[in-house]
């Protein structure tokens, strides 16, 4: 939106005057008020923009990204659970990646096919791809990278997923540009499992030191990196898909969310990564002349896990009642202020091709009847939340208010954010949680919902569901397989213990100079993102 009056930016370029100071102060006071009254009125002048600006990026320029570094233990080894997420997509490529519809598309592998039984997969690799150290990429590098993920010493989150169907003898290279996987059991969705952000390919000889060298085939090469500190990457001219729009990216670690926002508003950085701004802050940022907000659609998958092993929720009727009792549309309207879409307890985002659009009903009377049948009328329990994520508490409160109609009496309890995922998650019978979306369908269902998976946050166990997943993996026909996945989704909605009230848009703070910002499948679009000037 072009400013009608001369923007404060121009004033600043001339140096601060008394007038600027006064208008600046008045504006800030206004912003302060806006923050204070953030949750009172529905209609307001400042709205949160829909998406990121697109346009032609000027060639060159350096993008400055502020990131919340996990800890000083972070590493550039993508296989590790302590990887520095923002660097990975800039430095490396995978064999295959996901597009926005969740389909598996080419990256370092150009094409792939399987034997009719789905046990042998052959990937044809891209030729003439160079690593940042000048070496040529071959199948040996891919084999070494995947072996590194499978190595128990790496303790990679993807190690267990791939280890389920791969062992040391599964991989072979008939020639330098052909990679063959002989799976220990059939898997029609195997390529999609290689799209995980742990599966980046690094040179075979560099694995021991990859955590600090970051040598890959990606659009940028590393020039400096300090764990939990700052780092830089420079455009890699020999990247196989062409040179990126930017000359380089400077990363800095800012732990405090307010400090990250201040840095953006002060023009010290251009983008805040891994941060879902709360609505009050998002409005302040979009009202700023330097910065704005870009929405990443449905990027946040919010859940309310009911611990299926707890006395409260081991009865499927109680779990059903907890679902019938609330209307996700209301939760989206209140907790997300409309910046998201209702989930109706289906964990599959509507953007995925395998999404099942059958929707459960909202029926508080049915919930009440189910509770009565289960002998739990007027059920009382606690729902745990924390300041870990800005939507957690609004979601817990909105859910509590919704289920009152069914006679369910919930007490919202706030737990410390720094131990929320060690003390509350998978420990308390009822709590709120979230994930980033971006998992392919097979990984999503197997990792979060399968019996015994270490990420199964509701400890739900259903043998029919597990059987459906096994059948799907053994079914090479795409339509048949999609139907099996849809049956699995319906089972989660009916019997599952992990509710999905909604998918939230991630509100990302970016400078008004940034164009073509896109982020999906756990990766930025680093090739196209650029600066306007």
């Amino acid at each position, binding site marked *: 939106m072009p400013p009608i009056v001369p923007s404060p930016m121009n004033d*600043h370029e001339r140096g601060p005057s008394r007038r600027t100071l006064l208008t*600046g102060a008045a504006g*800030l006071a206004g912003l302060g008020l806006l923050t204070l009254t953030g949750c009172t009125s529905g209609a307001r002048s400042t709205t949160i923009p829909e998406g990121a600006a697109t346009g032609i990026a000027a060639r060159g320029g350096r993008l400055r990204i502020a990131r919340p570094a996990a800890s000083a233990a972070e590493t550039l080894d993508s296989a590790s659970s302590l990887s520095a997420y923002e660097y990975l997509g800039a430095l490396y490529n995978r064999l295959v990646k996901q597009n926005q519809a969740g389909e598996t598309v080419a990256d370092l592998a150009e094409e792939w096919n399987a034997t009719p039984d789905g046990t042998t997969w052959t990937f044809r690799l891209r030729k003439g791809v160079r690593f940042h150290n000048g070496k040529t990429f071959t199948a040996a590098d891919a084999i070494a990278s995947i072996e590194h993920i499978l190595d128990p010493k790496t303790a990679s989150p993807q190690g267990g997923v791939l280890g389920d169907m791969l062992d040391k003898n599964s991989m072979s290279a008939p020639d330098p540009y052909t990679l063959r996987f002989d799976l220990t059991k059939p898997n029609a969705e195997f390529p999609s499992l290689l799209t995980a952000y742990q599966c980046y390919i690094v040179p075979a000889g560099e694995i021991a030191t990859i955590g600090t060298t970051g040598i890959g085939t990606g659009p940028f090469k590393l020039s400096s990196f300090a764990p939990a500190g700052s780092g830089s990457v420079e455009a890699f001219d020999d990247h196989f898909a062409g040179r990126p729009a930017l000359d380089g990216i400077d990363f800095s670690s800012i732990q405090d969310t307010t400090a990250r926002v201040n840095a953006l508003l002060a023009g010290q950085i251009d983008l805040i990564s891994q941060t879902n701004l709360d609505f009050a802050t998002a409005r302040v940022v979009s009202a700023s002349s330097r910065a704005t907000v870009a929405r990443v659609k449905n990027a946040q998958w919010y859940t309310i896990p009911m611990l299926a092993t707890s006395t409260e929720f081991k009865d499927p009727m109680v779990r059903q009642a907890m679902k019938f009792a609330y209307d996700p549309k209301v939760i989206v309207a209140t907790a997300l202020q409309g910046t998201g879409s209702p989930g109706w307890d289906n964990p599959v985002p509507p953007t995925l091709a395998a999404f099942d659009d059958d929707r459960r009903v909202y029926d508080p009377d049915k919930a009440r009847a189910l509770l009565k049948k289960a002998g739990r009328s007027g059920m009382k329990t606690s729902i745990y939340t924390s300041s870990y994520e800005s939507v957690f508490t609004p979601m817990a409160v909105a859910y509590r208010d919704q289920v009152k109609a069914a006679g369910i009496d919930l007490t919202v309890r706030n737990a410390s954010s720094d131990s929320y995922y060690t003390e509350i998650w998978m420990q308390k019978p009822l709590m709120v949680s979230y994930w980033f979306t971006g998992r392919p369908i097979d990984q999503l269902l197997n990792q979060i919902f399968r019996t015994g998976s270490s990420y199964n946050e509701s400890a739900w166990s259903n043998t029919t569901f597990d059987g459906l997943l096994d059948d799907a993996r053994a079914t090479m026909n795409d339509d048949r397989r999609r139907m099996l996945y849809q049956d699995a989704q319906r089972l989660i909605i009916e019997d599952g213990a992990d509710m999905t009230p909604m998918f939230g848009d991630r509100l990302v703070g970016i400078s008004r100079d940034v164009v073509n910002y896109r982020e999906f499948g756990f990766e930025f679009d680093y090739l196209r993102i650029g600066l306007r000037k």
Partner: protein
Amino acid sequence: MTVLTTVLRRIGTAILTIVLASLFVFLAIQLLPGDVAQQLLGQNATPDAVKALRESLGLDQNVWLRYGNWLIGAAHGDFGTSLVSGDPVGPSLFVAFRNSMLIAVPAMLIGVTVSLTLGVVAGVRRGRASDHVISLISLVVMSVPEFMVATVLVLVFAIAIPVFPAVVLRGSDATVLQLLPSVWLPMIVLTLAMAAYIVRTARSSTIDVMASEFITTAELKGLSTRQIVWRHAVPSALLPTLNVVALNVAWLLGGVVVVENVFNYPGMGKLMLESVFNRDLPTIQAIALLSALIYVVCNLAADLVALALDPRLRTRQRGRRARPRGTARRPAALAAASAGPATADTATATAGTSSARKDRA
């Protein structure tokens, strides 16, 4: 002999305080939920991942044994290695401490000088316009928490009028020169937060002293206000203020945690916050040790300065130099000095100062 015993006793207490501080911090960390492996992994803390990380960090070892080993190492100057970064704690703590001192020392110097002056001015001009202005401003600054002061300063001087950077973008690898543009706002916040308390104490203590008999005596002798204030009132008024100054200097260590977090400043406060969050025991222990050391040293220094500023002590030394008569009063003066500045006996002080003046005349 008595002085030596006092000093030795103080040093002994100091060492005990430091060791106890380290023990209490250790116990407190044990009470916190989760260990370093769980904290680092967060949502990825699957049983296998936690087990692998614990083994690689040596966390399977008995926790008391680890504490004991760390303590022995620390006594030899080896503060162990960080469980998170794997780097030795000593050097990284030194860098963080240096960065913190870069904002804390100027804040301390400016804060103490300016606030003592303002406090004395307000005390002397009690009830006048300048007193009202100084008191009001110091009350306001005192009531507003420092993170709020920091945020307002960032809004005004980094966002509205961009003269200073809002945050530090570089991490602990930043050199002093790279940090220089960013030190100003944190320094101002620390100065303001600290100064307010000192202004209040200096003001009330000046008012007390100005009302005392020896000042009246001095006024009746026809000395100029300037002489009365700076030669007689201020040294006595500073005595009770000293402990507040010492406490405030030590408080700076706590204040930097908040301020450094708001400005993303790579100092000791931020290191402390991160290591507590990650349950990085060796780093927390080293920080606790250093903080306790600073606390103890500050208080020790305050006591020594109090001894030096005490008019009775000054008289004794002068008296001894001038004539042997002074020796007669010596034991009493020493006893009063070691009993602490708070028990100042106005009558002795008055006698002391007037005799000192006579010596000069």
